[in-house]
């Protein structure tokens, strides 16, 4: 607060006079209070000086208290002060929920960022202290034991959310967790990550206590350890919470098993169990038992099972006499199944998935036998047949020799919408339904020896209902072409209704060749007609024309022009050609504009990111460069592979906590 006394206007002159009068009044008062000291000087005796100093210190302290009182009184006139305390607490709560303001700060510090509000003024601090729930969230975002104890004390008896990552120092971590678990009776949200040895001790010691308010439980055994072949995973105790966790709704277990007792699962809305590929399968349920548990989960919204089915049972399961079909509840919005192809395909055959659920299947073939990848496809085709709409868009990611990713939508997706939600492995970990633009079906095939993903794709497209697909997105390897002319004509050419093709990376050249050089199908399934007869729209992205597409002797324009000139006389109606972030020049574009009614070009002649790119655009370039690029908006520009950075603004957060 300061008065502007700088100009010479009448009002400021008056204000200056007012300040002067006020100062004189206080000085006069002060003079009277310290009048008795007027004869004391530096030459006086030590005792007198000491006494004078003491007296003056008292006056100073009194003045500070007076200034504070005036400021407090002034704050009562502030509009924000008139907000009811519960609203102020709600504002703080939003801050506590949604820190940090930026992405690239370390987790622990950022979680305490909201504490700055308690240093604004007395009123704000008191409002924060009067709201125990503020202190009960993310109690363990630090491993500072005294800080955690203080948080627990300030949270009084409100419900707690505990998110704890094992720190390298077990001497600190274990006592901290023991302190926290003394409060098991009021923990609402518990997320625990640690090494197997320490987790096991904690779980045995504390997880038999009743947890009457527990809503969400997440237990993760550190991945670094669990990569060891047949490493044992952590097990929750058989007397879990003494059978008393009636509010448990979300259960997330990563490299951790649980007693597979119905009472734990009956009320769940979110179940996620992920086991490392090579970890021990001890403690996992039989597929039949898992099916019986799913049968009682009538509220389920999210289901994710990764490597939960024992691989060794794959062959024997096919002999299983179990023919009971389980219908998953209509509330389910996400179904995610991953693991070895054989047992998981058996499992899928015994499930009816609701039509509106987003399905994510990730299957691994441990042997070179390509057929195991496809065991699940008939079940999947039956499920897709229940959709109200047929599949209208498909994306194929064939960039690797060891996997193939296929996504499908029941509506026609534009290229931009595709890029907005495109990721190799979507983060299907939220409880909330996937966004509308997310694929309704995602299939990931993995195999452990190199093989042609085009063969796998071909078999997939033969099995699934793809006759009405209108939009096709293809990602090819930036280093070598998977999508040869034969692949385009014989495999993707099956999609006869396609009107829009988006080619990323280096499938472009063979795509163009295939447009004019159709090869008769060796399988005899396709007529030797032009590829995609209804094609209206081509998009090319990240295509390094100079390096990969054309011979050095042939210009980009001449190469594409040649194709288009041959294609267009057939008048198959190509209307729009879009070129983004590709290595192409203006002169090439001008030539193309003579051939196609509309050419859209972003003006970029390089596939490298620029400073004006958004985060999404740079993420899109991730695969072109083969490593992550992050923009540090503090000062550094684009960085490679740096994810978390500490920044000065969070220094001292711990000190700010104690007041």
């Amino acid at each position, binding site marked *: 607060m300061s008065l502007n006394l700088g100009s010479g206007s009448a009002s400021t002159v008056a204000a200056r006079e007012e300040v002067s009068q006020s100062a004189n009044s206080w000085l006069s008062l002060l003079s009277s209070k310290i009048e008795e000291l007027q004869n004391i000087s530096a030459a006086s005796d030590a005792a007198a000086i000491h006494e004078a100093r003491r007296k003056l210190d008292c006056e100073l302290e009194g003045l500070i208290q007076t200034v504070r009182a005036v400021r*407090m009184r002034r704050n009562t006139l502030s509009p924000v002060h008139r907000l009811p305390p519960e*609203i102020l607490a*709600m504002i703080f709560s939003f*801050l506590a929920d949604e820190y940090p303001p930026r992405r690239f700060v370390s987790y622990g510090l950022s979680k305490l960022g909201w504490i700055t509000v308690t*240093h604004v003024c007395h009123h704000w601090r008191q409002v924060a202290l009067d709201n*125990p729930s503020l202190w009960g969230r993310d109690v363990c975002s630090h491993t500072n034991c005294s800080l955690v104890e203080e948080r627990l004390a300030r949270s009084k008896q409100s419900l707690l959310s505990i998110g704890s990552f094992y720190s390298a120092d077990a001497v600190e971590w274990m006592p901290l967790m023991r302190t926290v678990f003394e409060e098991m009776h009021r923990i609402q949200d518990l997320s625990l990550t640690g090494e197997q040895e320490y987790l096991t001790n904690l779980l045995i010691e504390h997880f038999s206590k009743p947890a009457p308010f527990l809503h969400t439980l997440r237990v993760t055994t550190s991945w670094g350890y669990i990569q060891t072949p047949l490493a044992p995973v952590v097990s929750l105790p058989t007397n879990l919470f003494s059978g008393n966790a009636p509010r448990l709704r979300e259960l997330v277990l990563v490299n951790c098993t649980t007693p597979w007792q119905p009472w734990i699962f009956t009320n769940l809305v979110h179940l996620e169990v992920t086991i490392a590929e090579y970890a021990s399968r001890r403690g996992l349920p039989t597929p039949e038992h898992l099916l019986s548990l799913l049968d009682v989960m009538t509220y389920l919204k999210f289901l994710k099972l990764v490597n939960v089915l024992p691989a060794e049972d794959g062959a024997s399961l096919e002999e299983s006499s179990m023919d009971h079909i389980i219908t998953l509840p209509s509330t389910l919005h996400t179904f995610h199944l991953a693991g070895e192809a054989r047992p998981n395909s058996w499992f899928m055959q015994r499930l009816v998935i609701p039509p509106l659920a987003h399905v994510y299947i990730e299957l691994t073939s441990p042997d070179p036998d390509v057929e195991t990848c496809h065991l699940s496809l008939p079940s999947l085709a039956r499920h897709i047949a229940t959709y109200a709409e047929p599949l209208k868009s498909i994306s194929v990611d064939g960039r690797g020799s060891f996997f193939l990713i296929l996504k499908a939508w029941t509506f026609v997706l534009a290229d931009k919408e595709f890029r907005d939600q495109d990721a190799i492995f979507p983060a299907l970990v939220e409880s909330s339904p996937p966004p509308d633009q997310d694929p309704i079906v995602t299939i990931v095939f993995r195999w452990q020896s190199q093989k042609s993903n085009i063969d796998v794709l071909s078999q997939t497209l033969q099995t699934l209902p793809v006759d009405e697909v209108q939009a096709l997105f293809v990602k090819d390897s930036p280093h070598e072409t998977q999508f040869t002319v034969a692949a385009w004509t014989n495999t993707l050419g099956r999609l006869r209704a396609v009107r829009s093709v988006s080619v990323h990376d280096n499938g472009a050249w063979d795509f163009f060749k295939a447009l004019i050089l159709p090869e008769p199908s060796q399988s005899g399934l396709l007529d030797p007609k032009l590829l995609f007869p209804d094609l209206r729209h081509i998009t090319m992205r990240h295509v390094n024309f100079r390096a990969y597409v054309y011979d050095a002797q042939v210009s980009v324009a001449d190469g594409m022009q040649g194709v288009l000139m041959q294609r267009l006389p057939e008048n198959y109606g190509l209307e729009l050609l879009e070129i983004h972030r590709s290595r192409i020049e203006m002169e090439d574009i001008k030539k193309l504009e003579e051939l196609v009614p509309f050419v859209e070009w972003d003006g970029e002649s390089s596939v490298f990111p620029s400073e004006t790119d958004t985060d999404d655009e740079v993420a899109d370039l991730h695969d072109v460069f083969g490593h992550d690029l992050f923009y540090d908006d503090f000062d550094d520009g684009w960085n490679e592979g740096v994810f978390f950075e500490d920044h000065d603004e969070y220094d001292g957060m711990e000190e700010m906590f104690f007041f």
Partner: protein
Amino acid sequence: MPTIVSVDDSTVPGEGSSRLLLLVSSDNKHIVVEEDIMSRSRFISKQVEGFEATSQRHAILLPFSSFVLNKVIEYCSHYRGYYLLEDDPDAAPPGRSPVREWDQEFLDVDRNMLLRIIKAAHYLEIKSLVGSCARAIADMIRGKTTEEMREILGVENDFTPEEEHSPSSKCTG
């Protein structure tokens, strides 16, 4: 509690399916609004229930300006007929208000206006609007230093130097 004054039927037109309410702002502006629009306000709903009990019609006097009241009516009009979980008295309170794009634009106003709207929303018991305003204020100060927060919201530092800077482990809760 608001002051309620009896009004003549002729003051408040409308006897059809969508009844009209007369709201009177602190600057004595009379604003007629359809009851449906304001049904999102628990406060107004309770008032209307009271009217029905007495078979009398009233104007509702509100302790904020017509400028603020019109903003609130604009909000309620936009969400007329929409179900918002936060405003459902029978629903369990949501963990936190969701981000609504329209709200963000609607609340792109200066600090004082935002504070007036949130107070009005609180008075009228429109929880969804209170939540959106609270989020907007939080957005305003998120990531700011204490000094910047004081500047933004016009608050004085009323701590003594000791209170402000000296760490202590005293639990005041």
